[in-house]
């Protein structure tokens, strides 16, 4: 229990960016700029807005299929945002235009090569000077599998998550496969690298084997920040074993507490205790001056979309002050931060950066300036050494 004389722990805050916002009718709102969703200008504007609010990081949502409101096939709805740019590249495009904020693109482990993902995220870390992460996800969707044509039978959830865990293991080993000081440029011996500091990773798993080393030198953070959603038993092991940040739905206190406890138990079983595992609550937010205004806006959006979005318990409507209350209360379930999904990016992202953040600052639970240059630094995670480095004698 926290002693009233110690200042409250700072809260971490991230936003999830996807199209015009989480609400299906978000693109129809004033200021939404739906014709610009596939331009660099749009994404650069959002990233700079988030950075103005001193947020820890932004996630770039993604998938390897066209968005659909049906679970296992494509809808043909003309009234929804469809189409998405590759998230890693969108993050890379905004990296040179930002300086502090973490950049966390989503990646689907199920259909990608860990070798490619590892060097892409390492490179994102190089171009952003230490601000890269990734949000690992799996896909059991049969229509998505047909885009790759290799797998006819979708894998069971446990299999998908086991494969994703192997995927992350390969990625992490590849990041470590170059020791930090492998490049020596030793003119006397003519050696550019010290090959004893480059390592084969020799990963052998159920779904793939990868020899290594990476072709990309170790990224500035050593290990960029790995994150994933903990949604259901099958995913808890992945979050516990493979990530630095896990996301859990922050529907209500009890369910959040139960998910946090399950992941913490799984984490303890792994024996990985050197670094904290951040657990962030996920909420969709509609922020206005008061709850009735936010509720009315959501109703109007639901009417436009022709389906109630507000019924979901993971949705918050209200004022920034009320959201601050909720975050601080929900945090007691064992969360160290939140990943907020703006319902309408054009409206709710600035509400987060310009109203919620100042409110949290007044309460002494949010930073007033960036205190570190890397994403690990912002999250209070130390920079790990390469697992392959021989310890100094």
């Amino acid at each position, binding site marked *: 229990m926290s002693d009233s004389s110690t200042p409250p722990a700072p809260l971490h805050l991230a936003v999830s960016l996807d199209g015009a916002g989480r609400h299906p009718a978000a693109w129809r709102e004033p200021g939404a700029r739906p014709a610009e969703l596939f331009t660099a200008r749009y994404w650069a504007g959002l990233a700079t807005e988030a950075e103005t609010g001193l947020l820890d990081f932004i996630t770039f949502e993604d998938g*390897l299929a066209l968005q659909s409101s049906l679970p296992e096939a494509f809808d043909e709805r003309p009234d929804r945002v469809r189409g998405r740019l590759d998230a890693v590249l969108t993050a890379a495009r905004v990296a040179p235009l930002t300086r502090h904020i973490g950049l966390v693109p989503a990646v689907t482990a199920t259909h990608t090569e860990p070798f490619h993902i590892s060097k892409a995220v390492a*490179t994102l870390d190089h171009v952003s000077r230490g601000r890269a992460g990734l949000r690992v996800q799996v896909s059991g969707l049969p229509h998505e599998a047909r885009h790759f044509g290799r797998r006819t039978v979708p894998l069971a959830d446990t299999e998908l998550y086991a494969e994703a865990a192997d995927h992350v293991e390969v990625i992490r080993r590849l990041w470590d496969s170059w020791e930090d000081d492998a490049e020596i440029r030793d*003119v006397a011996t003519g050696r550019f690298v010290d090959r004893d500091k480059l390592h084969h990773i020799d990963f052998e798993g159920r779904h793939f084997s990868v020899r290594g080393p990476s072709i990309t030198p170790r990224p500035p953070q050593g290990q960029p920040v790995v994150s994933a959603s903990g949604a259901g038993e099958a995913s808890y092991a992945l979050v516990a074993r493979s990530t630095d940040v896990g996301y859990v739905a922050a529907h209500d206190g009890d369910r959040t507490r139960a998910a946090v406890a399950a992941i913490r138990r799984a984490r303890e079983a792994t024996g990985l205790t050197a670094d904290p595992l951040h657990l962030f609550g996920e909420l969709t937010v509609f922020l206005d001056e008061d709850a009735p205004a936010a509720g009315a806006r959501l109703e109007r959006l639901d009417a436009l979309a022709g389906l109630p979005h507000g019924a979901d318990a993971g949705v918050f409507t209200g004022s920034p002050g009320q959201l601050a209350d909720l975050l601080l209360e929900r945090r007691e379930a064992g969360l160290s931060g939140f990943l907020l999904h703006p319902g309408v990016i054009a409206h709710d992202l600035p509400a987060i950066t310009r109203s919620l953040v100042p409110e949290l600052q007044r309460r002494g639970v949010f930073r007033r300036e960036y205190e570190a240059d890397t994403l690990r630094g912002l999250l209070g995670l130390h920079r790990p050494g390469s697992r392959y480095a021989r310890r100094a004698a």
Partner: protein
Amino acid sequence: MSSKPLKQIHLAAHFPGVNNTTVWSDPDAGSHIDFDSFIHFAQTAERAKFDFLFLAEGLRLREQGGRIHDLDVVGRPDTFTVLTALAAVTERLGLTGTINSTFNEPYEVARQFATLDHLSEGRAAWNVVTSWDAFTGENFRRGGFLPREDRYSRAQEFLATAHELFDSWDGTAIAADAGSGTFLRDARAGTFAHRGRHFDIEGRFNVPRSPQGRPVIFQAGDSEEGREFAAAGADAIFGRYGTLEAGREFYADVKGRLAAHGRTHDRLKILPAATFVLGDTDAEARETAHEVRRLQVSGQTAIKYLEHVWNRDLSAYDPDGPLPAIDPEPGENTIALGRASVRQFRDPLATARRWRELAGAKNLSIRELVIATTAEQTFVGSAATIAGAINDLVQADAADGFILVPHITPGGLDGFADSVVPLLQERGVFRAEYEGSTLRDHLGLAAPAPAPAPAPR
């Protein structure tokens, strides 16, 4: 006398990659990984109004004798990621990435190129390469490796499939009309189905049509199949012949193949890689060029290079002594792995015999022999000499332009931009300003055929 109008020269910049031609020991040499190096290099190329920046690719660190090769520049960033980041710090420069068709999947690569094209406003190009070997394949779970004879059949189908994906959205599919609530004018945008020997895929592509419609397509690879592949569908070739005779022969051969594919002479640009050493005078440049060659080919580097042909450990030999008297080890090369150059030596016994004759006739040591037989700099001289040589080769149809590979990272292009480019501009053979905004514009390529009309429902 009516003279032929002068051909316009295309120039591009190859960021020095993994090789022994980068003089990393030079005090001016910087990082080849740090993003600042890429910014410097790209902005120099753009200041010089170059067509594009070019990145090569390798997907496994090279090994020699079972150990990672440690003498050359090693390590490179991810092609897509660094090119997309460069789109933020440049405005017109084309961005060409080498991406292999064996160790990737069409849906993913098509998305990445379409994204790069969107985020750069029409500056993306794809150099399709087909390296296929099992050594590289050990880094990948899928695709594995291919029999050599299948490399272009997969590449061909990969490219065709990617084009089907690019074409699955037409440029008018998105209405984004908030008032009526119509986001998609064409509700079935992105629909595709491809059934072939290498790919059997169907569904919905999820990136709308990009500014260029499709990225510009490059090919690199010099075999008969490679030349056919380029003639059939590429917009440009990244070639290796930067001299008058070899260049004209290659140029005539490849351009001669176009008609059979229903394409005209100007649909395919031939852009060889070229190195250069610039001096205040020709004599000074020649002297520098000689020094650079000595730095590029150290004694150890010469021995390692010889091992590519001999296919055995030669570390006991003295680089300043004569060539080995023993013959190359026959069979698959197991000494130098991941080396493109190894494939040049299809007949090691004949190569060894030729080299011994050459070394004997000119009394060359191992190191001198390697310096003599590996590519010397394409252009050496004062700015005026280099500008003249480039223009002569282009006007003589030995090339349509050059992809320049400096030997210093990242400042190796600076002198060229400041002294050679203005001379080419004065001669009226190189643009003074960008005329268009897309890479297709810079290369003078027609827009790709519009995507077919949406399939009837």
